[in-house]
């Protein structure tokens, strides 16, 4: 990565608000298996960031270890990437956010990375309402180590070698709700139309935004009997609603009147437009979200779409009461007390 990269731009490519082409949001060529769900999610991330006109250098993409955790290499090549250690991305992201509240944080993880080795850190990042969009590329297995069942594999799901998983699967959305996650959504790598607006909303949400994306592993867990295969997911998907993220001022006014749409204003100037599909559910009401989720689970449906959002929550920085200036920008003058003060301190110990 010398930055002597070709700056030539095809003048015909449509540019976004900050004058960047979609290409500029791409990354290196993927080394994942052809057809891997994760690649589609990378595509959705690229599209969402392009459409939102995010300045790539203002975004930090962090991950753990796994096929899913490799994807940050394959999108947003001009952003800052950190492929940490297995299961420990949330703490690295927390530290990064503490140091610089002004970047946008995108965490990418796998179901093994999050629900097994990373469970503790995942839970605590939620509890602290860390400012991050946390995407789990959930394939119910450990792709990179060759297909073992993960902790999100459903009991009864059959893996490639024909074995039936005995243990109950962890529902990351259910867990997120229980722990007080302030933005909870589920999607499917095969449904970009649903996924892209969710990513946009998640990137905008001030606090912990969880998107659990079913993302089939074509090599190890796409067989008949698997409950994380393309076919199974397509058949059992049930969406809460169609949503869209609308930059507030610009567009909300002439959309105000569409009857079935609910508008959720976010802390910045944007708004989530929810085209309500599911009855008996209000994304702003946690109990209804929990009920909806439990109900879908009982009926062996995979509930997708936005599930819950809390627009009033206090994010990590508010909870920590840190200064508006990112800590990494404070100079020695601001940070170091004077020699006189040190003298005064000495007096206390005399």
């Amino acid at each position, binding site marked *: *990565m010398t930055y002597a990269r070709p700056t030539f731009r095809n003048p015909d490519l449509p540019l976004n608000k900050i004058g960047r082409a979609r290409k500029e949001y791409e990354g290196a060529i993927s080394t994942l298996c052809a057809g891997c769900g994760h690649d589609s999610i990378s595509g959705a991330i690229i599209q969402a960031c392009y459409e939102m006109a995010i300045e790539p250098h203002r975004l930090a993409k962090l991950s753990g270890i796994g096929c899913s955790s490799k994807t940050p290499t394959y999108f947003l090549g001009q952003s*800052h990437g950190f*492929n940490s*250690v297995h299961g420990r991305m949330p*703490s690295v992201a927390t530290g990064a956010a503490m140091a610089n509240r002004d970047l946008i944080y995108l965490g990418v993880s796998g179901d093994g990375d999050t629900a097994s080795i990373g469970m503790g850190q995942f839970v605590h990042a939620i509890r602290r309402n860390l400012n991050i969009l946390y995407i789990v590329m959930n394939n119910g297995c450990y792709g990179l180590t060759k297909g073992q069942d993960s902790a999100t594999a459903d009991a009864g799901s059959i893996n490639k070698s024909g074995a039936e998983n005995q243990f109950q699967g962890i529902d990351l959305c259910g867990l997120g709700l229980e722990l007080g996650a302030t933005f909870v959504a589920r999607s499917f790598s095969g449904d970009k139309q649903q996924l892209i607006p969710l990513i946009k909303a998640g990137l905008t949400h001030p606090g912990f935004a969880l998107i659990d994306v079913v993302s089939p592993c074509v090599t190890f867990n796409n067989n008949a009997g698997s409950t994380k295969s393309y076919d199974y997911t397509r058949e059992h998907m049930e969406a809460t609603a169609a949503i869209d993220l609308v930059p507030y001022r610009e567009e909300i006014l002439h959309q105000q009147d569409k009857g079935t749409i609910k508008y959720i204003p976010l802390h910045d100037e944007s708004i989530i437009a929810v085209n309500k599909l599911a009855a008996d559910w209000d994304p702003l009401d946690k109990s209804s979200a929990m009920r909806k989720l439990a109900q879908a689970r009982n009926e062996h449906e995979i509930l997708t779409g936005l599930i819950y959002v809390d627009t009033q929550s206090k994010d990590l920085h508010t909870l920590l009461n840190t200064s508006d200036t990112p800590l*990494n920008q404070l100079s020695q003058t601001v940070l170091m007390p004077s020699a006189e003060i*040190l003298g005064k301190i000495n007096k206390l110990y005399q």
Partner: protein
Amino acid sequence: MSQPVLINDLVVRFATVNGTGSASANNMFAKAVYRMGIPVTPKNIFPSNIQGLPTWYEVRINEKGYLGRRDGIDIMVAVNAQSLKKDIESVRSGGYLIYDSTKTLGEDFIREDLHYIGIPMMSLCMQHYNDPRQHLLMKNMIYVGALCALLGMEKEVFEQLVQEQFAKKEKLIPGNIQALHLGMNYAESNFECPLPYRLERRNLNQNKILTDGNNACGLGAVFAGATVGSWYPITPSTSLMNAFEKWCTKYRIDASTGRKNFAMIQAEDELAAMGMVLGASWNGARAFTSTSGPGLSLMSEFLGLSYFAEIPAVLFDVQRSGPSTGMPTRTQQSDVLSAAYASHGDTKHILLFPSTPNECFDMTLTAFDLAEFFQTAVIVLTDLDLGMNDHLTDAFTLRDNYQYNRGKVMTAKDLDDAKVWGRYLDIDGDGIPYRTIPGTHPSKGSFFTRGSSHDPMAAYTEDGDVYADGMRRLEKKWETIRSRVPGPEIVRFDPSHNEAIIYFGTSSYAAVEAMDILQNQGIALNALRIKSFPFTEEIIEFIHAHDTIYLVEQNRDAQMRSLLMIENAIPPSKIKKVLQFNGMPITAQFISDEIQKIMQQAPIHHS
């Protein structure tokens, strides 16, 4: 028994029950000694529980400035019935026992060779205080008052200390002053005061302060510009983070907004604490954590990432007695080897070994500078003795015109000016690459950080030669580090001496005293104190300049000796082990005895 008079050379031990407020009274005694200009160091010997078990506070007073622990208690203030029997046994023959004579001592508790000073502490309390909650606390002040009289100390000093201590709760002052006087008066009226063991004013504490290493490190981190602290509580490191928070709350809150110019998170465990440090450091903040043994073990995967991906990190390891949970409230220097090589694969980390609170403060600044300059983890190894006990130490000072060394960081302009930039390119030939802070430049300087193998441009590689080149560059960086870490303190170097003592950290106090003990017996040793790892050339030369080295350590396995051999090809036969590892701070007597034992042994067969 007629007593020789002992002036300003005493060990006073207080035996109390933890959780009963005796700590602050005992502390006041030590501080009074300090205020009288006499060198003093107290040590807390406390159990791993919260309330109700025996705890001791041992004060060594020595006008020659010998401030390590010393065995042999001269005066025991024994106010814990649970441990009384053993406490009495521990006094040295001819010493004094101060006890609560409200109840008479049984036969069993009488030793012919001791002086018994009974003060009816509880009954004095009952007579003078109505509130039973005060009884325990006032009892403590009574024995402090008695000590003042018995040792011939200045009562104004104590009165002044009471005023200061209760400055914010003024109405408690009269009661406490009264208790002091009750103790003094009782002692004066019933015993010949002062005793032959007594304290006389000196002026030896100028420019010295009495504080603990954890406070000094915490304060140091504030001065060093650390803005991110994450941690998981563990004895004996907890008070370091508490100190950081306290000083930040004082000096790092924006006056206009009330907002914090620092961020602290109590992490869910030590893995997360270290993860946060790496995340924050990667993002360009000075960040740190502190822990003790078990936490160090848990951080080892992340420490490897720091080494290989070259991310700064500062870690304070306040060592306690291992292995495993071990003795959590006892000291040791037994994480040396595991800290140096923490993590699988070929890894190495910079270690710093402060020996006083003053040095804790100063080395904390150094730690952050080194971590950022070398883009790697720096582990400051203190221990429970240094971290949690007050020590008499030079007042904190700042080096003149001290500027943070943020290391090789590319600014936006640097990036624009540079022809080529690669995160892991060794431009300067010193093994240290240039880094960027995320968000610096709209189109330049982004790179991918990873713990997997990478080429100089930070791209993933599985090419063995590229990988090996990177590993060799890290070796080169290590050599640069070796030339830049704090050199040793060469305490004594007389070319005519063939033998020397080497020590580090809290063994210093005792080692210096041991040298004098040996000197008195005609054994002259040179001396060096190690301050950092890797070892600078001076250390190696010093060792080569001697036939025999006595290496003093507070661990069983001679871990520092291992490091010297591994890294510097020092012949093992040359370095003799002087090892104490029972969890108590090492004593001069132990060191001098061990050295003499080794000297008496037949020379080992050198093969």
